[in-house]
């Protein structure tokens, strides 16, 4: 049953990424050139509602559908890892025009070269694992 719920949430997410064009390389490029409001509208409205939802859940201690406490995992306090890591991610996001969610949506949509991006992102993740202890965090 829970598996089915994850599949349905995933399908909703995939359809949203594709139909919103957030999975389009062109929209990412356009966003970084500030030539359209589209992506800012998507992220901004998702965020505005997201803040309300999360703060509401926290304030009123809303339980999950299964009656369990909903946990938020605060990120460890640091500056360098988020800043450096963020910049590296941003360079790749603009170049490949895809982030880790939409990548998988694009495979399903039938754009085969995205497979190169996915395999490379696994290699990138592996390189991080290798170098982790030598990087400033």
């Amino acid at each position: 049953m829970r598996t089915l719920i994850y599949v349905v949430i995933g399908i909703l997410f995939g359809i949203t990424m594709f139909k919103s064009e957030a999975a389009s390389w062109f929209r990412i490029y356009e966003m970084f050139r500030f030539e359209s409001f589209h992506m800012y509208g998507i992220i901004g409205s998702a965020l505005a509602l997201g803040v309300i939802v999360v703060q509401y859940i926290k304030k009123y201690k809303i339980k999950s559908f299964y009656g369990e406490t909903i946990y938020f995992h605060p990120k460890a306090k640091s500056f360098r890892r988020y800043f450096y890591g963020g910049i590296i991610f941003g360079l790749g996001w603009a170049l490949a025009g895809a982030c880790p969610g939409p990548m998988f949506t694009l495979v399903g949509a039938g754009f085969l070269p995205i497979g190169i991006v996915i395999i490379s992102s696994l290699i990138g993740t592996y390189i991080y694992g290798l170098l982790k202890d030598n990087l400033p965090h």
Partner: protein
Amino acid sequence: MNWIYDPWPWYISGPMIALIMFLLLMVGKNFGMSANLRTLCTICGADKKVDFFNFDWKSQQWNLIVILGASFGGFLAAHFLSKDLAVAISTETINNLNELGFSSAGKSYLPNELYGLQAFLNLKSILVLVIGGVLVGFGARYAGGCTSGHAISGLSDLQLPSLIAVVGFFIGGLTMVHLIFPLIFK
């Protein structure tokens, strides 16, 4: 019923993303897609060589199911919910991309130069996709999250680290598009 084939405006798309985050929270999970890349590395055996990948990947099985669903959602959206896949980006962006050699700007969903089947035979396209992918994978794990984990989940939870990461995303993206693109595409 033709509206069903149209692209979604931002005021539908954004709230849908918030809804997806909400649904995941309500089943006790957190919205963050790049964690799957680490899980996939572990499944491929990376845990035998590198300690970072040594974790109980089964605890992340749910997330793999979500991206499997996201893939199927992409299939449905592209084949049954769309007729014309062209993305109506702004005229300025189209003109700029034409100058850089992207003739498919405004005519397709993704640039043919990078994501058409001919990309497999073009060394430059392959390099762009490989370097882009490596940077995304490395950067997401270094920063501890990607667009979904930081820009949506983290910022919704008013996390300062996520704000730092998102500022980083933009510095990186702006540098790539404004400073590096003119050097690699001409």
